């Protein structure tokens, strides 16, 4: 997909003039790909908890009911990452990801590495085979890379950084009737 270019930027660039034919074609392509985006968004919503649990398991947490504060922080930040990527994907607008911040007072130190693990899980390293189709993975990939770049740029260098935070407050999420838990409800 070549839509990894924010719509607000396109429109701002053309202020007072018409959108270019290329931009209009891109807009139509976005519209035609919307159902695919929506399907993928709903996969995120359905699989979020399983994917995060898989990452926590890979990091040695066998009992997700008994997580340390730092592990809970990681779980919440991974959930926020998934939700941010999902929303940007749905909107066809990566600009929010380019300026992504976890919204918490502190970034979990190992988040970039955990995102790599999460990406591997999403791509289908589970025993039951891939959850995403090749097309879905191609659609998602540029958004994920944008998030990873933003996240890496915010992460402090490991050598000069303090240890991972033990307890951090995360902004409370809006309540949702969806099956997905709010960030505050996750792993508590």
């Amino acid at each position, binding site marked *: 997909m070549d839509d990894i270019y924010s719509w607000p930027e396109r429109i701002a660039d053309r202020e007072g003039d018409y959108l270019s034919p290329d931009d209009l074609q891109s807009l139509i392509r976005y519209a035609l790909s919307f159902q695919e985006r929506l399907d993928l968004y709903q996969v995120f919503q359905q699989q979020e908890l399983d994917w995060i649990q898989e990452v926590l398991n890979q990091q040695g947490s066998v009992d997700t009911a008994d997580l340390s504060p730092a592990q809970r922080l990681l779980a919440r930040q991974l959930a926020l990452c998934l*939700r941010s990527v999902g929303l940007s994907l749905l909107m066809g607008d990566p600009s929010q990801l380019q300026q992504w911040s976890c919204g918490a007072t502190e970034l979990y130190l190992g988040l970039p590495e955990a995102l790599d693990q999460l990406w591997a899980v999403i791509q289908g390293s589970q025993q039951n085979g891939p959850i995403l189709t090749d097309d879905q993975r191609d659609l998602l990939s540029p958004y994920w890379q944008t998030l990873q770049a933003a996240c890496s740029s915010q992460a402090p260098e490991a050598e000069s950084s303090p240890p991972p935070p033990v307890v951090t407050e995360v902004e409370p999420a809006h309540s949702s009737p969806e099956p997905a838990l709010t960030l505050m409800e996750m792993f508590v």
Partner: protein
Amino acid sequence: MSLMFADLLQNTEGRYLHPDELKSLHDYVEGIPKRVRIYQVLQAKESALLDRVIEKFQPMLPNLTRRHGVLAWERCRRDLSMVWRYCCMAMLLNDEDYLRDKLLYWLETILKSFKMRDECKPVYKLMLDSLAHVFTAEESEMIRPYLILAKTMLVS
């Protein structure tokens, strides 16, 4: 993209969209191909519309160049073109707030400060009346609400 997109992005950080929000988004996106098609027609026929409007407007203001200089009609057409293009973008985005925020609040101030509202009043009626002569009914109805908004804010 549109204000609806911006609102969703701003208000839903940290959670998944509710079904009603997804439906609103889906409804808008479903209409994009039609909006793009109409946008392209509105763009292609801008000159035809403005030719007709200016031709009918000039006799109403025979002293315009004497009062505002030799470039007065050129500037009039430029301003109408600007209003038209912002209306077209607002139609594409299905977003009246875009038109208000990006153009009308500013242009309203300009017209007031130069005391041009009364002079400009007929031209927006001419634009609205000319739609049916240049565009199909469907095309006219898609752009009409934005032109009416412009007329209301700028000269009513």
